[in-house]
């Protein structure tokens, strides 16, 4: 009898081993990506806090829910299924009219204005960040503002006015020098990858982010099989002359009203009222969390309603690329045929004439213009080789002068690496170049002691 138990245990172990060998190690399939294009004068931290505010809005209004591990999903549908929802910031600081960043302009404005406060301001740059919204009930800014001295009031008025001037000027600069495919290579390549992999895209832009989201939206629609039913844009305080979806613009948005007065370009009509008293909380009437996501105002419910409508209206695209454990996407900025070449750890070369590798597949090949080309590594742990995968490009034909962007993403962590700036594709080499592509990036796949698979990327 003991032997029988031992045999049974052995069989169960074998079954278990077989199941473990076939483990799906990808963390997200299909589903939604909420892309947030941040406002003017935002740091990474500010943009992330804003995006977290959007996520909180969607959670609080039961548009989405969370698993125990913190991941976000849609609620179960009638078939008992739900889909993952991830949030990604398409981060941009802002250029200005004199070639510097808007941050450098804002620093200069503060340096000039702070003298009004005297020597005590000489090294209190927390006041600078407070002027951009970084204040609180225990901040120096609020102590001084609450004291209502003529000295500080004059400083505040002049600083905020000139800060707004710098911001509005930056809008004009971006409008006159809109991001090109080359400038926005990282972000547009990411969107095209997501579209290829069957994601539904909700793009939410605030302030200057609207000047970036419009070309991004137009670019993602270039992907075969991906159309307007799978991507929506919600414009918040749009500092842009055109829009691609519904928008919210408050009557007392001081920044956009100032932009309107300059005549740099036409902006949308106001479509929601903001009480005058709210300017005590946000003197600009423009900030994302304080004003446009504020559910105590008319702005918050309006924006939330637009997000909910857009989110619920998205349908899955008919694109047929796969989201692998990791993926590599190639795009370029014009016509011609550029090829993606992959060398797997066992030496298998995956490219247009050998699309199936040992661990991955070139599932999208483009011979006309712009790309994308797309390689995915399998999600099956027993087929995924550990080791180094190498990726390069070859200008097969007609792409002289083009610049290419190669981007590595993983299902767990999003974008891991992008060639930035984009790379010159070099002279056309035809099939002769298949033997010696320009190698650009290595992807290393490892598994740790706990059996967790990880991918990392580094330039070649």
């Amino acid at each position, binding site marked *: 009898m003991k032997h029988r138990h031992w045999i049974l245990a052995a069989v169960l172990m074998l079954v278990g081993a077989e199941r473990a060998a076939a483990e799906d190690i990808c963390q997200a399939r299909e589903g939604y990506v909420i892309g947030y294009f941040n406002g003017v004068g935002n*740091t*990474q*931290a*500010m943009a*992330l806090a804003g*995006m*977290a*505010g959007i996520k*909180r809005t969607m959670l*609080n209004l039961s548009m989405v829910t969370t698993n125990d591990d*913190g991941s976000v999903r849609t609620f179960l549908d009638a078939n008992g299924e739900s889909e993952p929802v991830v949030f990604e*910031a*398409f981060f941009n*600081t802002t250029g200005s009219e004199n070639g510097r960043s808007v*941050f450098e302009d804002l*620093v200069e404005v503060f340096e000039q204005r702070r003298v009004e*406060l*005297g020597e*005590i*301001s000489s090294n*209190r*740059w*927390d006041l*600078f*960040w*407070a002027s951009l*919204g*970084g*204040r*609180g*009930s*225990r*901040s*120096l800014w*609020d*102590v*001084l503002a609450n*004291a*209502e*001295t003529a000295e500080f009031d004059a400083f*505040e008025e002049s600083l*905020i*006015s*000139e800060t707004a*001037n710098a911001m509005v000027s930056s809008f004009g*600069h971006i409008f006159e020098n809109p991001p090109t495919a080359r400038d*926005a290579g*990282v*972000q547009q390549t990411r969107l095209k990858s997501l579209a290829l992999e069957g994601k539904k895209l909700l793009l939410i832009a605030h302030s200057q982010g609207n000047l970036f989201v419009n070309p991004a939206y137009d670019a993602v629609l270039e992907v075969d099989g991906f159309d307007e039913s799978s991507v929506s844009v919600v414009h918040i305080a749009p500092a842009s002359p055109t829009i691609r979806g519904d928008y919210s613009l408050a009557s007392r948005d001081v920044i956009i009203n100032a932009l309107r*007065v*300059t005549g740099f370009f036409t902006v949308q009509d106001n479509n929601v009222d903001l009480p005058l*008293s709210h300017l*005590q*909380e*946000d003197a600009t009437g423009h900030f994302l*969390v304080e004003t446009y996501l*504020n559910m105590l105002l008319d702005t918050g419910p309006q924006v939330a309603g637009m997000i909910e409508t857009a989110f619920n209206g998205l349908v899955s695209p008919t694109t047929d690329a796969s989201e692998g454990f990791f993926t590599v996407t190639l795009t370029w900025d014009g016509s011609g045929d550029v090829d993606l070449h992959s060398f797997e750890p066992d030496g298998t070369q995956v490219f247009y004439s050998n699309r199936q590798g040992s661990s991955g597949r070139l599932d999208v090949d483009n011979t006309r213009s712009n790309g994308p080309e797309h390689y995915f590594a399998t999600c099956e742990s027993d087929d995924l080789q550990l080791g180094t995968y190498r990726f390069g490009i070859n200008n097969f034909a007609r792409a002289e002068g083009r610049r290419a962007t190669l981007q590595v993403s993983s299902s767990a*962590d*999003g974008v891991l690496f*992008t060639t930035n700036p984009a790379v010159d594709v070099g002279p056309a080499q035809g099939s002769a170049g298949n033997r010696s592509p320009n190698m650009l990036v290595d992807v290393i796949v490892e598994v740790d002691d706990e059996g967790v698979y990880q991918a990392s990327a580094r330039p070649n």
Partner: protein
Amino acid sequence: MNHPNVLIVLLCGALTACGGGGGSGSSAPAAPPPSSPPPSGGNDQQPAASIDSLVADAEADGRITVFDRSDDIAGGDVDDNGIRDDIESYIDSFSLPAERAAAARQVARSLQSALLTDITDADSLRSASLAMRRAVSCLAQQSSEALEVNELVRALEAATANTRQRTDRYVAYNEALSGEVLRLPDVNACDG
């Protein structure tokens, strides 16, 4: 492209309309009441205090934290935990619940890391960026109020980049990330 003067007029009008105190009504982060009476305001008849004395009084009576304003980027960190000592005191002054305070410390650590990272090294930059994404995500998981998360992040950012040298470094860090796509990590966002 000129800066139209009309902008200044328009903005001053807005500020005058709200009493010139844009931001004085800021509510979070869950600060305790001041330990001493507020400075004289507009309703009493006492002469207005000078800026210097307002700052000195506020620092002396603990209404605001006395921040490290030394010339070096790192500042003082006696316990070597990656958070400036003055900013730890600043976080303590908010009297946050334990898990939220831990998340705020994680944000502060990531901001400090952003100041100190070598932005010319792609791996270091990516690592610092990921640490900040995890930290903000963690804080957002610990607070159901978007406004509180936003104000805590911004307050810690202001405290961390509180000198010209630190501001310049922090601006350079952010410029280096411009154009990137940054996922907000949901799983295992909180340290420990």
